[in-house]
């Protein structure tokens, strides 16, 4: 049984319990999962689940609280799911104003050969409406003589504040997706951050397919 979360940049796979992550562009031609979700699931999965449903189902299973908000910061978009009294209370999906934030951060680190683990968080953020507008502001700062790591820290702070506000400014923010591995981003969020990792949606797929089998 192969389960796959086919994201814009990375695909998270669970093959008979074995978890791995590969760049989506490196997926073999004709690769097909039994059950999948994500932006690139079409053509790569026999059955497709709505990506917000798989994400919310995984988050509910991984967080032992009745009230919480979980945010998945992806390459292309930001997803949020909220639970109140152990009941699903709402979801949101920012694929316009928050778009490309994750992708842009990865692009920046490659372009400038940056190690996000080594950069100190900034108290002051850049207004980052989206990745493209944000990177333009960052280049302006660098051109004005700002130290590169400090400028990047301000960019990341801007993205982190967007995510924090998108989440509804919680005291504790449950974070999913590739940004869990970016310490600069995590430390730039002004809340307690609990990292759930990159397989939240895959965990959701596991539960949903088990339920489905149980119903048959």
């Amino acid at each position, binding site marked *: 049984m192969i389960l796959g979360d086919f994201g814009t940049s990375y695909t998270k796979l669970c093959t008979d319990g074995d978890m791995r992550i590969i760049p989506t562009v490196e997926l073999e031609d004709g690769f097909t999962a039994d059950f999948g979700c994500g932006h690139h699931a079409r053509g790569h999965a026999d059955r497709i689940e*709505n990506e917000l449903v798989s994400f919310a189902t995984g988050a509910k299973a991984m967080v032992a609280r009745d009230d919480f908000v979980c945010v998945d910061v992806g390459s292309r978009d930001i997803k949020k799911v909220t639970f*109140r009294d152990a009941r699903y209370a*709402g*979801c949101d999906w920012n694929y316009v104003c928050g778009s490309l934030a994750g992708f842009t951060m990865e692009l920046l680190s490659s372009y400038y050969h940056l190690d996000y683990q080594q950069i100190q968080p900034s108290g002051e953020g850049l207004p980052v409406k989206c990745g493209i507008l944000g990177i333009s502001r960052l280049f302006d700062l660098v051109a004005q003589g700002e130290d590169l790591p400090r400028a990047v820290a301000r960019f990341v702070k801007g993205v982190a504040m967007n995510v924090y506000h998108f989440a509804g400014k919680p005291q504790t923010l449950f974070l999913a997706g590739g940004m869990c591995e970016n310490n600069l981003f995590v430390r730039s969020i002004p809340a307690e951050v609990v990292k759930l990792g990159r397989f939240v949606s895959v965990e959701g797929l596991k539960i949903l397919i088990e339920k489905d089998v149980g119903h048959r």
Partner: protein
Amino acid sequence: MVGIIGLPSRSLLDEFRADDMVDLDCPLQGVLSYDAVESRCPKIFCAVLTTCFTNAMLVKPHVILADVGPGKCEGARYLCAILKDLLPSTTIITEENLDSVRRPQTNCECYTVRLRERMQRIVDRVIRPELPDFPKSNSSPRAGFWGVPPRDFAILEGFPDQTIILGWSRCMNSRTPADLQLEMYVPADVPVVFFSQSFCQKSILAKALAEKYQGLFVECDEKVDSSTIQKIEAFLKLRGAL
């Protein structure tokens, strides 16, 4: 040909019943181009009013009946002022429809007919009031759709048949378009999608009511995109409506 904008009063519509009528708020077959209004209509503008504008310029009705009061919007008032200037051969009759006697909203609570079909019936009844209402169901709704009839009816496809119609569409069905109390009615314990056309003043109602009733706020411009469809599907699935 008589063109209709918004929902004029019954008495005004009745004066023109013998004429052919066309609802200018709805996309008309064969009218696909905004070229007719491009030089005068900003890109960032309500898609429904842009549709009214385009249709009026291309169809050139001999009379336009328009509600420009609280049952429609200021945008319609401005649009009619512009049309008076651009269509000198058209008689433009504006009014503030304050009809307050509600008719039964059975189309909104018939759960054996698809949501899209019921919404279409509500819209069609503006110019064809002889069309029968769908019967009210005795069962409870599983979901709700709040808002105006959308520019793109594709947004209605993913809802279960057991979806109650709320908001201004309900007022339209009731033929009381300025009935704010009815527009703000939301039943308890029903997962409701609060829809607004982009750039519409009603978006503040949609957003605030979504927060109050733990619903989902969505806004769309001309065409609904797949991400919005997925967001609605997830909301309905996770709240047990699908």
